[in-house]
């Protein structure tokens, strides 16, 4: 299984380590080399310093044909953007964008992106901890609900030939 991860923060580094240790082919991208210090020195995947919202970069790191694409930078819009590129331009099937703003997370889920919202996860976990009933919608990754409103009405990935 091949995974491309954008953003080597704590979450990005953590998931990259887990997947790579399980024997998956992992490429993690961040605009700062220092971010890669979060990886173990013997990290078995690839770490590439580049801008993960640039189409050329995503092509170079092998997004096309990847099984998983996780956009996990600090910026909600950057994540949404990288995820749109992965899904639309490169046709990756399993794409998840981390969107910390719950309103935007909801909006992008309706627009056809799978999202994970840290705010909602934590609010729910703490509310449960305080004995309140849980919010089932806050658990894990929210699968895309809506579909992109394509002009052609279809869903095949953009045909990009260069």
């Amino acid at each position, binding site marked *: 299984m091949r995974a491309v991860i954008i953003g080597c923060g704590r979450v990005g580094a953590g998931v990259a380590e887990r997947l790579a240790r399980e024997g998956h082919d992992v490429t993690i991208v961040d605009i700062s080399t220092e971010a890669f210090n979060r990886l173990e020195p013997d990290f078995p995947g690839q770490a590439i310093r580049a801008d993960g919202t640039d189409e050329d970069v995503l092509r170079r790191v092998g997004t096309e044909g990847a099984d998983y694409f996780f956009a996990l930078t600090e910026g909600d819009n950057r994540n949404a953007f990288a995820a749109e590129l992965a899904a639309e331009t490169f046709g990756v099937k399993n794409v998840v964008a981390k969107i910390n703003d719950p309103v935007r997370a909801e909006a992008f889920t*309706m627009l056809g992106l799978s999202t994970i919202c840290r705010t909602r996860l934590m609010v729910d976990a703490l509310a449960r901890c305080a004995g309140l009933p849980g919010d089932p919608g806050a658990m894990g990754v929210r699968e895309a609900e809506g579909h992109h409103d394509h002009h052609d009405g279809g869903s095949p990935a953009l045909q990009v030939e260069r």
Partner: protein
Amino acid sequence: MYIVVVGGGKVGYYLAKELLDAGHELVILEKNGARARQIADELGSIVLNRDGCEGKHLAEAGANRASIVAAVTGDDEDNLVVCQMAKHHFDVPRTIARVNNPQNEELFRHLGVDEIISPTRMVLSSIEQDIPVHELLHIAQLKSGEFDLVEAQISDGSPAVGRKPTDIALPEGSSLFLLLRGNNVQPIRADTVFQVGDKVLAVSRAGEEGQRSLRRELIGETEQIGDAALTR
């Protein structure tokens, strides 16, 4: 007309100024407080010091009654998010985005942004106009990118030399309409005969296929010369 402008940088500022002068009603969303105050000092209370990427701020700005939302920040990802929110959440009839990386244009168009403004592309075309290349020169986009306005230089070896427009097999959707010869500009008529040195303005359907055959008819098989040289 009510217009929401997101991003109060240079582009947003001058855009707002022109639109106000033209008598339109508008609001600018600018997330930087100091910049927002600065614009308010210049243009009056038409500025909301808010991040336009957030749905509730767009709602506050009255996006649901806007005829146009123009996202002109310096960040492509922010501009895309704004337009998507505007289009799909507030049913704004027309969304306009500034795109800095020309490669992102296709994605923006695909995701429903109605109009794309690419400063990079504009500067690029101006530079290309000064470089003599045996290619179709891209001048402008028409109908939101459905058609391209292009210029072709007729040089020695072009199959069009000595021929009339009616002798040229034009691809579907394209037409030749203006001839630049010497210091004159003239419409292309049925009896125009093309000469070496002519420049022809043509409209062509966007995309590789149509433009390739247009290039073949007007400029010639430049690519094949390269291929032949390689195989030797």
